[in-house]
């Protein structure tokens, strides 16, 4: 797989690096590996997304050309030495109550695919999911890749309130709402595991490149 990235300054203090414009495990692995290597630079922040990342830097500290070539050097060395290291991955078990008051859209997802609610749960819990990125709100993990047998479009109109811990589906993605918020994902269950604890030393339960195994518990 040839990886040609696109580097563009999207502001005087941020550089966008696009590695691939697809939802793909290997592209995401490369983005995340690259983001770890960038931490040795004197930069302000990194935003990791599915196939791209954004580097925020202090424009008073760098010359644009020099900064770009430093980033490119790191990129080239990461990609040259890149190999998948799945054995290092952290897998979290997350216990979920499915359906009913916890998963008001489970029936819709089942009906959408013409299968039973039981089938949806079985399919959903049959694989582990990669955390591709966090966003939307602090601690909201975008995970995937869901099987096409249960992938379901978002709600036509977002709900005004989705309870904290709600497990949702949007297309081939799944996610957990860390806090009570508005949201348009199909809610199939809920977990009591806290995703975001702002006052704690380690506020985020899930981190980019972690994996999640959903385990069904009785509701």
């Amino acid at each position, binding site marked *: 797989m040839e990886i040609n990235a696109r580097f*563009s*300054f*999207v*502001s*005087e*203090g*941020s550089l*966008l690096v*696009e590695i691939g*414009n*697809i*939802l793909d495990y290997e592209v995401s692995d490369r983005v995340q590996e690259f*983001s770890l290597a960038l931490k040795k630079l004197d930069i*302000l*922040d*990194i*935003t*990791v*997304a*599915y*196939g*791209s*990342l*954004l580097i*925020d830097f202090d*424009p*008073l500290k760098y010359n*644009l050309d020099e900064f770009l070539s430093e980033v490119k050097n790191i990129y080239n060395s990461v990609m040259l030495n890149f190999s998948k290291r799945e054995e290092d991955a952290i897998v979290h078990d997350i216990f979920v109550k499915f359906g009913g008051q916890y998963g008001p859209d489970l029936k819709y997802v089942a009906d959408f695919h013409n299968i039973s609610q039981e089938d949806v749960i079985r399919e959903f819990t049959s694989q582990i999911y990669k955390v591709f*990125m*966090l*966003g*939307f*709100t*602090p*601690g*909201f993990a*975008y995970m995937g890749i869901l099987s096409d047998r249960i992938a379901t479009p978002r709600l036509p109109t977002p709900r005004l309130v989705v309870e904290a811990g709600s497990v949702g589906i949007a297309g081939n993605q799944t996610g957990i709402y860390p*806090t009570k918020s508005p949201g348009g994902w199909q809610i199939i269950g809920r977990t009591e595991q806290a995703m975001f604890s*702002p*006052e704690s030393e380690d*506020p*985020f339960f899930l*981190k*980019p490149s972690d994996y999640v195994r959903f385990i069904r518990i009785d509701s």
Partner: protein
Amino acid sequence: MTANIEILNAGFHSIIQGNQRIGFKSFGVPESGPVDPFTSSIANLLLENKPSDPLLEITQGGLEFVSHKDTYIAISGADLNAILFRKKESNKIPVGISIRLRDGDRVKFNGSNNGFRCWCAFCGGIKVSPVISSTSALESSNLGGIFGRRLLKGDIFEVINNTKPGNKILLPLLNFGNKRNVYLRVTKGSQYDKFSKDDIETFFKNSYRVLSNSNRIGIRLSFPDDKIKPIKGFNILSDPSPLGAVQITTDGNPIILLQDRGTVGGYPKIATVIKADFIKVAQLKPNQLINFKLISVEDALKEYYNISSLLEKSLIEVNTDLIKDYISLSEKYDLSYFRLYTENFKFLLKR
């Protein structure tokens, strides 16, 4: 010796902002912090505080508070007509100098047609415990500041109140009141190349109107002219949302993304407002018209250098003996041009 500030009226939107939340964007946490960090830092520097000590960001006005101990405050940004009430006296507080507050003094921001936001710093900064390495309130996530939200009537916060500030004064080098039609300079955004030539031309030719549902997440814009067909956004695989990104939603209305935005998003971003123009962005008020002007990243960087050095030079230490001479001279000759300064200097002396 701390001082207590009690909110008598919170006004339209008043919120505690301090340092930026740096280093958590990959966990979905935006930088937060003042909408215009250049200008907010001035209020702090006038009091010898650190540039990003927690202060009040006041939008539109209406805020009224009482101080329950002697302390100092300083205001930067738009002149929202702050009035100091002491016993039966009332005086307008000028922007850009430090003011002494006595126990029982009330301050009210009446608002103005000329500008939308100001920052009010307190001696030593507002006492706030940092959450996710910042004191700034992030309302959408209910964290930071006081109770993670905007101020409400009855809130009380403590001020560190540790020093007596020097005689610093802000030279009026910057104009914080926006004109009716504001030009915002932008660089090419993340998906600039994905828009058609026609769409790009339309984007830069048009004026946009600021909508009233704008907030710290984003400034929402609409096309004021019904005759122009708005350019339409499209869905992209969610990618990072830089500060100042102008995203085009599927209904065609642009949003300028600010400090409290989501860190990733699925709308295309046609442009990014340059950092130096956040001085203007912070002052955008509903119904104001704006236009975008494309410049290069190199030019944006020059503007950033310029603004940074201008701000450094706009704060000067004044000598009280010189001020006294100045006041007597300007009063003797009734030089109206200098009247603003004279009033400001008198305030400094009164402390």
